[in-house]
């Protein structure tokens, strides 16, 4: 129920998510990031087609943010209002780079 599309260009990796980022699907994203983040300096997460995020999804974003803080930057693009509100109440908006 989660489609992950990855585009890598030198140090930039763009990951488009489609579907739901929840307890059952978050491990897929976590695993993919763990395997590919090594030489990435710019991580762009495209949320245009993401319908849903739960705390399991938030946890993956948090670990990714921690890694990227050390080696570059992380940006979230095309975030819908519903997801943005979840970032808001959880305080994630304060440290995530949401465009």
């Amino acid at each position, binding site marked *: 129920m989660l489609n992950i599309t990855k585009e890598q260009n030198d140090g930039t990796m763009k990951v488009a998510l489609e579907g739901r980022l929840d307890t059952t699907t978050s491990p897929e994203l976590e695993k993919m990031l763990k395997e590919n983040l090594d030489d990435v300096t710019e991580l762009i997460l495209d949320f245009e087609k993401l319908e849903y995020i739960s*705390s399991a999804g938030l946890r993956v974003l948090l670990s990714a943010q921690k890694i990227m803080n050390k080696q570059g930057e992380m940006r979230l693009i095309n975030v819908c209002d519903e997801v943005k509100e979840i970032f808001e109440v959880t305080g994630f908006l304060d440290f995530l780079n949401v465009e």
Partner: protein
Amino acid sequence: MNTVTGACKDGILEIALAGHIDSTNSADVESKINDLLDGRENTPILLKARDLEYISSAGLRVLLHLKKRNPDLKIVDVSTDIYEILDMTGFTQMMDVKKALREVSVEGCKMIGRGANGTLYRIDQDNVVKVYNNANALEDIQHEREVARLALILGIPTAISYDVVRVGDSYGSVFELLNARSFSSILASEPEKMDWCVKEFVKVLKKIHGTEVPDGKLPDMRETVLSWADLVKGFLPEKQGEKLLSLIREIPYNNHMIHGDFHTQNVMVQGDDILLIDMETLAVGHPVFELGFMFNAFTGFSELDHRVILDFQGFDFETSQIFFHKVMKEYLETGDEEWIRSVVDKARIIGYTRLMRREIHRHGLETEEGKAKVEFWKKALGELLEKTETLMFDRNELDIEADVVNLPHVLEFVEKRLTAADCPLKARMQITVAVEEIFVNIAHYAYAPNKGRARVRVEISDEPIVVTVTFIDKGVPYDPLKKQDPDVTLPAAQRAIGGLGIFLVKKSMDDVTYEYRDGQNILSLKKNLK
């Protein structure tokens, strides 16, 4: 032809009238009748008018005299023409007059459906006749017409009969039904339409079960089933018999409609419409009774001899099993096989009780074959009663193993109900996020390291629209609301991974309550939609 012939039968003087009765022969007719009446002044009279072709005012006077001499007078088998004369002159109000029933033959007609009490034949392009098995069916027919009318008024698609006819020695009801086909016939000849059949079949079933019936209009199915269980009890070990009765007694009165004989021979397709044709078993009660009878139609009756289903429905036992399973899945709106099985088990208790009572009632215990059947049902009932705590189930409650792999089922179950209530996207997302957090929590901690079940209930109230999702588990007492909120002002580097779930739930719901009662954790989420 003799105009008047008569004989006394079972204390009733039956007089057959034939031909014409007018001024030329009325005096003669009257004197013949008087001869027959001689010495039988207080005997009830039945005038049989099947061969009566014409009656003039002189003839009517003869009837009037007769009625005065002998008030207990009935006229039956009156032709439409004669009935009109009697009606115009006010005679139908003075005496009991019954029209002759049209005669219909079903010889060579195609059988298109079959229910508990009758068989359906197509008699011409536009009409079908339902021939009743019971030779004395006039009362049944009257009852069925009344309940069919009631059902139609309450919005259930049903065919209404417009005429009662004689079919040989039986009676029949005539319906207008253009090119209609039963679901059984579709399943038998076009198996690729199975999924469409399941969808439409369940749609009508839900419509029936969602229909409230004014009190007293239909019989209470629980009373009927209790009377069966009362008989069956005597053939079960004492403890099991008592449990069977108390399980049925615990089902509360329910004023929603149940069909009572809902299977694929009784559901017809006519053009784009779905129509029910067999309404005499209509009742009110909990849907578990209906599912019990459906289990019998698709499995119970043919469980010991699979040929029975082919003979009755026209499709084989395997098709029947697949169809019934798909129907249950669609009806319960779930992909959770464990839950489907648990509801079917409840249905089987009702089904086997009915089958056992029927066999015993029909003196089945006097034959070896009947004894074997009763033994089979008795054993099955014993096993089912052992593991069943209630016969109730609720389509708004999901009972599922608390395991993270079941999360998609839980979310699907909740989302279906939110969508049906036109829940706005934002609230829908907040509720599903909250449901996920709570269910995953229960799955991880309530029974660890063992396994257990959780119940998820969705209630949506009207005006104001409030969604309440309740989680019940029998795991270790745990109040998640006591957990300290995370510090959401910290930067990423100082954040702990986790601890956000319950916080999200508290922030996004309008009310969250927890209690521990009767050994159960009960957590309720409330979200106001308006």
